């Protein structure tokens, strides 16, 4: 499913990718959130051109779709970086030093929470408990969990993702 979608972005237009997602769901209002979530996963944000297409399919107004896109934290109207760093700021992690990690990431990447690096490589997000409190503090990069993260190891972890991208990309 995911593979199919990412192929769409490579070969087809944005609209094509969005269509592919929309067609997985019946045209009813209650699927609006699911469609927006899939679009977010695929494009790392909700592109403006997605809204009219979704509107036509599920039959709600553009305003209502924008309301969803701005209300739900998981959705974003501006592009996110290639790698999304989620720093857990749940209570257990907070007490074990999320603020310090945030400061260190800020120094390493030059961005604050909810920002994206200029090169578009990383976005930084503070999230609520990710359900691994026993490993606090927890950082999730893309889908990898890093437990018991220390300030000292951050720059190296970040470099690994930066390098990985360099090696794997053929742009």
């Amino acid at each position, binding site marked *: 499913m995911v593979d199919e979608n990412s192929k769409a972005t490579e070969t087809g237009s944005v609209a094509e990718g969005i269509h592919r997602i929309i067609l997985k769901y019946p045209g009813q209002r209650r*699927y609006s959130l699911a469609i927006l979530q899939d679009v977010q996963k695929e494009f790392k944000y909700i592109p403006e051109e997605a809204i009219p297409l979704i509107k036509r399919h599920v039959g*709600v107004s553009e305003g209502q779709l924008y309301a969803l896109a701005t209300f739900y934290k998981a959705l974003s109207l501006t592009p996110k970086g290639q790698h999304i760093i989620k720093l857990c700021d749940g209570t257990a992690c907070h*007490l074990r030093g999320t603020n310090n990690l945030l400061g260190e990431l800020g120094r390493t990447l030059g961005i604050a929470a909810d920002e994206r690096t200029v090169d578009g490589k990383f976005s930084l997000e503070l999230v609520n408990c990710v*359900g691994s409190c026993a490993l606090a503090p927890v950082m999730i990069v893309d889908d990898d969990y890093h437990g018991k993260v220390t*300030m000292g190891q951050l720059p190296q972890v970040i470099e690994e993702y930066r390098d990985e991208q360099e090696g794997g990309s053929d742009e």
Partner: protein
Amino acid sequence: MSERTTVCGTPPTAFGAATAVTPRRCLLVCCGTGCRANNAMGLADALEAAARDAGLDVTVSSDAPQIKRTGCNGFCENGPIVKVHPDDISYYKVKPEDAEPIIASLGNEPVARLLYRGEMRQRLTRQIDNPFYAHQQKLALRNIGEIDPLVIADYVAAGGYQALKKALQMSSEQIVEEVIASGLRGRGGAGFPTGIKWQTAAGYPAKPKYVICNGDEGDPGAFMDRSILEGDPHSVIEGLTIAALAIQAEQGFLYIRDEYGLALSNIAAAIAVAEADGYLGDDICGSGRKLRLEIVRGGGAFVCGESTALMASIEGRVGEPRAKYVRSAEKGLWGQPTVLNNVETLANIPYIILNGGAEFAKIGTAGSTGTKVFSLVGKVNRTGLIEVPMGASLRHMIYDIGGGIKRDRPFKAVQTGGPSGGCIPEGQLDLAVDFDTLDAEGAMMGSGGMIVMDEHDCMVEVARYYVKLLAEESCGKCTPCREGLRQMLGILTDITEGRGQVGDIELLERICATMTAASLCALGKTAANPVLSTIRHFRDEYQAHIRDRSCPAGVCPALTVYVIDAEKCTSCGACSRACPVGIVSGEKKVPYSIQSEKCIACGSCRDACRFDAVIAMRKEEVA
């Protein structure tokens, strides 16, 4: 149905049904999210490879051991965990390199170095010997860590879907009666009696009706629902199906946080196989009864855990709560009678139906029956998910199960109930934890988060943290909550940054009173708890911030710098290695020192020091 494996030699569960099967040796590899973060999947692969190399056939039923990937054992900090049954051996912190020695040891002496070390450094073989597990009673978590969540036969062999078959023979009233008799109260936080909720919804003739499982788990610092959804998805499906039979619903939803990837995929797989095996779908177990289940992924808004907001979200609308003049049991999802229950609540249902409500009611206290799962985290020696009978004391959980405070520091407070709960000080450690006792103290059992804090945690900062979270998550529909939280956040931030003023505490109290009285939903109504409980028990600390510009816990960076006590310093260098900005220096035999003007007051050096030689000082004093 062709290649169904038989259940392995698990010790009898609460359902006691594993006895009928010939015990076959089995290695249970914990593959919950915590252990996966520590390469549990690689370990499971390595065990399979090592077994193959040793000439053992692990897949087809034979005498050779089976290797199973289970859900979370609750002790993630010591993962990955491997259990060997029926020998009852538990290994901790197992690495892929350990696979070979483990396989080679089967049937002989266990691999001693992987066993848990007791308080006297002795090696403990059985899970029950481990103090973390010794005091637990597992009901909601009964199967987790014992079965492969993706193999329905495991669940069935452990007594699964027996309750559903029994419920199919019962009338709606009989099911409801059994649940009422059990005294079960909702585990999602509010503690509403589940049986009464079902009875109300069952009483309305309107059709269709809906059942919903609340898997939004928003309490930051709690992960019990995640663990159940991941490790024993069929127990939730069975509970939800029984709820549907009780109120005559034919459609159900599971609303699960989108961040819970493994929970989502395990639930989806479980629904598919339950349908294929006839436990769900158009003809449940040949009874002609119907139930379709659908998963809805949450949008990452804390307020969507609230019942009416959650239903709005399922309908594809913005997740704002509505006033509850009319109960959801009468008019809920799409205006139809709806029952919404928490994950843990539902996981208890099969036990109740199978063993009878009276049996369940024997566990726990009179007003709060059964067990409760807690997520014990923070500054305790043993952190993790624990399940104990209702009414256990905080002291029992923190000291007997949690092994006391890290580094034997003094206990300061425990925060229960998440953003709706409060902080409980040392003097109240003997309180019995159930729905009513903590409420009376201005805290709340809530969904079971239990965060232990020591003297290095600042209570004003804790209050600020919860208020910040709530301010971000308030949906903004009603003014007391939206504006109240914003004002409180401003005041608390000022206090922690040294701009507090005399009168701030009283102002906070007034805002709290208004929010409690006038907010629309429980998010706003209970938002005062973290603030009021810290003011009540730690007023001195607030005053120190305001009056003396001092953070007694040495946490608030704007008020704190660290210095090294030359007398206590042993020049071990731990602080220097820990400092992220590299400003702690020294050499052997000479006390270390910190360049205080560059100190970011992160406290890493203090945490690293084993000799208490790093001291937090008032910034004004040093500067």
